[in-house]
């Protein structure tokens, strides 16, 4: 901390967006970097707290004050090394992480956190640009073989850690491209996909073998992997979407968000329509779109819909409208529940809270409208919140396309999980603790959403790294991989 009064002198300034009318014409990233100098100035605001809450707020425990200090002194390369020492893929988190670190920042006590995520992204982007990020192949091979099933952020970080520790790692992916949700769940305008390709190339050079279009559990049995590999990590995510169980659900035009988003990402990647949409094209063009679910996936559906040419987009959330501002005294440094307005909302979506969908209605098997009712949340005996419909509050929403973005209930059980024989926890996730990540089946480990349920990319990276350490320790008797 070269400047103790930096936070008093320099205003918080974060990356801006390109204007909405301009950005909705394409699928390119629209966040505008600050540039080296302005980023370094922002890093100067860091106070190098005696207790850096950000460091603990960050699931991968990024050494935030330390690299802020380096950036502010123009030491980008050491900053990059330090950043990579805790996070395999800062270019992913630097784009799509909701930044719990910033929520935990001491300066967030009065709503002016250091732009940690922006600094992180600037460090790693600069690293790629300058050619500082190179493969780090192991100096020694252990002769051990590890299979990673699922190539989302958990699988990728585990694979990279294990490969660098000298193990021969094979990543199996059922889709045609590597990346899991990073590839097909997150729209290109939020994160360009060449970022994944670049990492895949790095990892290949580090010895990781990638095998796409292999659905373990269907194309090959898990048992056969168990035989061939010394350890298997299940990192297949929490793919089971929560469904809308209302009359009319079967109508055409009501789809899960992932089906919709995946098609678009494939189109952007250059796939032909039959490849991108083998079960038929889903598009928002010329339609009134209703997105059910108020989270990040909902936002992604909104942004994609506008880019496809939707007439209108409305987002429904069953929970009441959260406060604009959290009660800092009782939440900081934890992640606050508060109203979050994403870039997608700025693009023109309407939002409604505390709305329950009762029924989908349509003509000729095609959805035309949703019948909804307003709800109230009341605290019942025992403190549990429960929902009550507000009498006389029924409303009807025109809807040509309904996208369900209501979260995920857990991993898909049929196939891989079923075959594994691994026991599930009460929430339906594959059971393992966050110390050793072992399932109850010998040699089988699990990490990421498959173990902890739907979560953030940054949590997946943490789990992948920690799981890799446990695997390494199991295979070698000791490990040098960090937790």
């Amino acid at each position, binding site marked *: 901390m070269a400047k*103790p*009064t930096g*936070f*008093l002198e320099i205003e918080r300034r974060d990356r801006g967006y390109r204007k909405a009318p301009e950005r909705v014409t394409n699928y390119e990233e629209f966040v505008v970097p600050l540039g080296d100098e302005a980023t370094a100035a922002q890093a100067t605001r860091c*106070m*190098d*707290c*005696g*207790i*850096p*809450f950000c*460091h*603990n*707020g960050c699931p991968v*425990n990024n*050494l935030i*004050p*330390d690299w802020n200090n380096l950036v502010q*002194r123009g*030491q980008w390369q*050491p900053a990059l*090394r*330090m950043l990579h*020492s805790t996070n395999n893929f800062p270019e992913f988190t630097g784009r799509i992480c909701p930044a719990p670190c910033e929520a*935990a920042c*001491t*300066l967030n*006590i*009065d709503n002016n956190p250091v732009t940690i995520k922006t600094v992180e992204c600037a460090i790693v982007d600069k690293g790629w640009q300058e050619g500082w990020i190179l493969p780090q192949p192991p*100096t*020694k091979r252990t002769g051990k073989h590890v299979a990673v099933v699922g190539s989302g952020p958990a699988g990728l970080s585990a694979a990279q*850690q294990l490969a*660098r*520790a000298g193990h021969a790692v094979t990543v199996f992916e059922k889709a045609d491209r590597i990346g899991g949700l990073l590839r097909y769940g997150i729209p290109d305008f939020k994160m360009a996909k060449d970022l994944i390709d670049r990492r895949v190339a790095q990892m290949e050079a580090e010895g990781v073998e990638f095998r796409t279009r292999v659905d373990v559990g269907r194309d090959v049995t898990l048992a056969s992997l168990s035989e061939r590999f010394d350890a298997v990590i299940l990192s297949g995510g929490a793919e089971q979407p929560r469904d809308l169980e209302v009359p009319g659900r079967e109508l055409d035009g009501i789809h899960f968000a992932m089906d919709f988003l995946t098609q678009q990402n494939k189109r952007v990647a250059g796939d032909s329509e039959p490849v991108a949409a083998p079960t038929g094209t889903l598009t928002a063009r010329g339609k009134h779109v209703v997105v059910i679910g108020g989270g990040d996936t909902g936002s992604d559906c909104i942004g994609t819909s506008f880019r496809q040419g939707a007439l209108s987009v409305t987002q429904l959330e069953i929970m009441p409208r959260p406060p604009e501002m959290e009660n800092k*005294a*009782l*939440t*900081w*440094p*934890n992640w606050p529940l508060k109203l979050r307005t994403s870039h997608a909302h700025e693009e023109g979506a309407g939002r409604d809270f505390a709305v329950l969908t009762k029924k989908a209605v349509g003509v000729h098997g095609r959805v035309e409208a949703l019948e909804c009712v307003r709800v109230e949340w009341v605290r019942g005996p025992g403190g549990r919140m429960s929902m009550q419909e507000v009498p006389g509050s029924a409303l009807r929403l025109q809807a040509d396309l309904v996208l369900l973005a209501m979260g995920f209930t857990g991993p898909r059980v049929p196939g891989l999980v079923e075959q594994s024989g691994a026991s599930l926890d009460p929430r339906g996730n594959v059971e393992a603790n966050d110390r050793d990540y072992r399932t109850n089946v010998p040699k089988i480990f699990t990490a990421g959403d498959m173990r902890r349920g739907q979560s953030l990319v940054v949590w997946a990276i943490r789990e992948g790294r920690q799981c890799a350490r446990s695997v390494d320790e199991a295979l070698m008797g000791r490990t*040098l*991989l*960090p*937790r």
Partner: protein
Amino acid sequence: MSLVSMIGPRPNLLGHHAGTHYRLEVSQPILTNAELAKIRHISGQIGGAFRAATIDTTWVASEGAGGLEKAVERICREATEAVLAGRNILILSDRAVSAERIAVPALLATASVHHHLIRQGLRTGTGLVVETGEAREVHHFCVLAGYGAEAINPWLAFDTLESLRVTEGMPLSAYEVRKNFIKAIGKGILKVMSKMGISTYQSYCGAQIFDAVGLSTAFIEKCFTGTATTIEGAGMAEIAAETVLRHRQAYGDDLVYRDQLDPGGDYGFRLRGEDHVWAPDTVADLQHAVRGNAQDAYKRFASRINDQGSKDPSGRLLTIRGLMEFRAGTPVPLEEVEPASEIVKRFATGAMSFGSISREAHTTLAIAMNRIGGKSNTGEGGEESDRYVRLPNGDSERSAIKQVASGRFGVTIEYLVNADDIQIKMAQGAKPGEGGQLPGHKVDKNIARVRYATPGVGLISPPPHHDIYSIEDLAQLIHDLKNANPRARISVKLVSEVGVGTVAAGVSKARADHVTISGYEGGTGASPLTSLTHAGSPWEIGLAETQQTLVLNGLRGRIAVQVDGGLRTGRDVVIGALLGADEFGFATAPLIAAGCIMMRKCHLNTCPVGIATQDPVLRARFTGTPEHVINYFFFVAEEVRELMAKLGFRSIGEMTGRVDRLDMRRAIDHWKAAGVDLSRILHQIPAREGVAIWNSERQVHNLERALDMELIAAARPAIEKGERVRITRDIRNVHRTVGTMLSGEVAQRHGHAGLPAGTIEIALRGTAGQSLGAFLAHGITLDLQGDGNDYVGKGLSGGRIVVRQPFGSGRDPSQNIIVGNTVLYGAIAGDAYFQGVAGERFAVRNSGAVAVVEGTGDHGCEYMTGGVVVVLGETGRNFAAGMSGGVAYVYDPAGQFTDLANTAMVDLEKLSTDDPADDPEAPVAEPPSVTDNGMGDPLRFDAQRLRLLVERHARLTGSARARALLADWDRALGQFVKVMPRDYRRAMQELRAERNALAVAAQ
């Protein structure tokens, strides 16, 4: 102080060749590589007086941990052989460290050789130089020195600096970088030496003034002979294992350490670094608990701290009490345990000064403690007197504990009478041996007013109390304070260390009502880094020793024992009580409850939560409330109750000193904890009939015998009705602290302003006992014809003291001492005239009093921050050392004063003579009030001011010297020297500029 070190053999002073011996002198002990090379190749130079030998202190990595012990033996053997072979400088070197060779920890190698050679009677035959990659922080150099290193070459530190210089593109030369490092380390070593009261490196070298915490006796005896170790612990095997581990991190292929080392986390929390009790989760849980009054969050907080050594959550071991467990008793129902509202009365908040923390934070703590019947502490910065008046809603912002520290800032008689406890801070657990420091930018107008200082001028509390050089002196100060406020308990704050029990016994015998044993865990964020990690000792060690010593000597019952330093939870309190504490101090935890987030930037005035700052913008960010603090203490008290119910105690009194109910935690799952043995801490002194183990008796202060009893009775009409009274008494040296209890009575009624000048005039004849006129209030004049003793006018609070030559003595006042040492120490207001010479340390830390004296001993006006001192005769050495305010005039006809003054912070000037007499800022004949000594603008009016004071001195004492000077005034004036502190002048000029700017703006 001096860093000069002598390398090489010590001569036999009684031998035949005494006086012909060569020793190598270095101006300071840190050697550059080049300097070490010179020493290494010194053989053959200087007539062959020196013959150096280098001993390799590394061992082959393939031997693993087992190799350490062998290596140490080999090093010691080689040292013996080298000395016997006539080598008289040994260089212990770990330069050979590599992937294949592990370095013996430099301290272990040094201390082992040092003691090995002592045992063989060979140590004085050789010098010991250490060439090591390990030493980099001040503490490292200090322990090496403490265990015998006469010089140290930190080669890796130099290599690292050079690499940093290049990679960071520093605009400094390699030489400058090295020079800066050496200078910084040298200053650090001096600071540490000063804390221990040692002034030369040669005395410090080999003095081994360290306690070991967590090392086994066998290991200590072998390698660190004579060092105290209380709790046993690791030995050679554990040290070896840890050394190998470190070596592996450095040379292994660990991915994390491929390019750089971990940030470590010693000074700031880092996840993979050193464990800290205060971590993000504990801070957040505590704050959420107190703000939302949420028991569950408190429980989470407490269990994170209490459940140490268990598998879950992380099994972190943090404190010695974490290694303890309770011995079960017969539980009692919770309802039968004394209520929390009673328990909290035993709680106090820590001594954090107003100045170090904001008024908002300070008053929040005070209001909270007053509401629950606990005690808050002023710290050493005085207190604004408006806080003595209750607020309209009944709250009180008055701090129940008034601290008296070495700086004596704001210690007036009014301050003392507004106390329930008066705490003498001998030292501070977090930074023992150091005085407080308030940087100039935190001294705003208000802070300066409360501390009787100058805005913008930094304030330094000297490490020692200048009126305490022995336990008798401490007893005297206790007596003085008791006289100032007989209703208050007098407390002495000590720092936990091996040997503190003896000090505590002395304190109890010195009739203190209360003693605080302060542990190292607590700490201010402003503590210097050198004090943060290796200074102080855990309170468990000091408290146990205190209890044992006091009980053994039958001194426990009459004194209350308080423990502080890192108390956080109810379990901490219970363990403190079982180990012997009656009362409990908390500092950091309540501050965190009020919003502190442990920025550790307290010294920068940039606290973002408005606590450790005086900046109004930042202070506005303070969100703490008394309720937060109260909630915290009640959570703690309820946890205490639950534990008491389980253990079967109904009151804290029953529980105090019941160390038999503590045991060492079995099955501690940590490889380094295996050898720990707490039996010395958990030892219980067998009960004896009539010997209390808790504070159940009272001290006898003998105040009823004081002369002041008569004075108060005689002065009643003055105190109550403002009538003028004249009292005449004979005085003898058994009459100590005369005038102080009377001043307390005055201040009780009339505050700091006291009575109109001269309301109570007391004429005394004879020889006064110590502390004549201590804390004398405004409106009281003591006119002693005779002799004063030590401490005359200590803490003078507005009164006037005149000491004249005894009737018919016929001695020469300019050659004879009339008042003793440490006169006017910490004086704040008032004036004093001594017709004779004062002893040493005259007017030290004077911050506003005016004094005329006819000569002084050494160290006059040291650390002075205000007021005016006139010396009409000779001074001793070191005059004006550390003086940052006020002015002094010294009559110096012989022109010798320049050599006697310490001019590090002051300029010596001619007096100004041509100032206008009718200026509103000119001095006036008599002091207008207790807050205005009538001395005018200190930058001008020297001649007027001096004349006025010399005339007053002549009038009050009849001084012949004064008359003589006045008789030939113009010549005399030219022979006076003005002592002007530079910082003070700057601050005064700034204030004047500000006034002028305001005046212009007003026009």
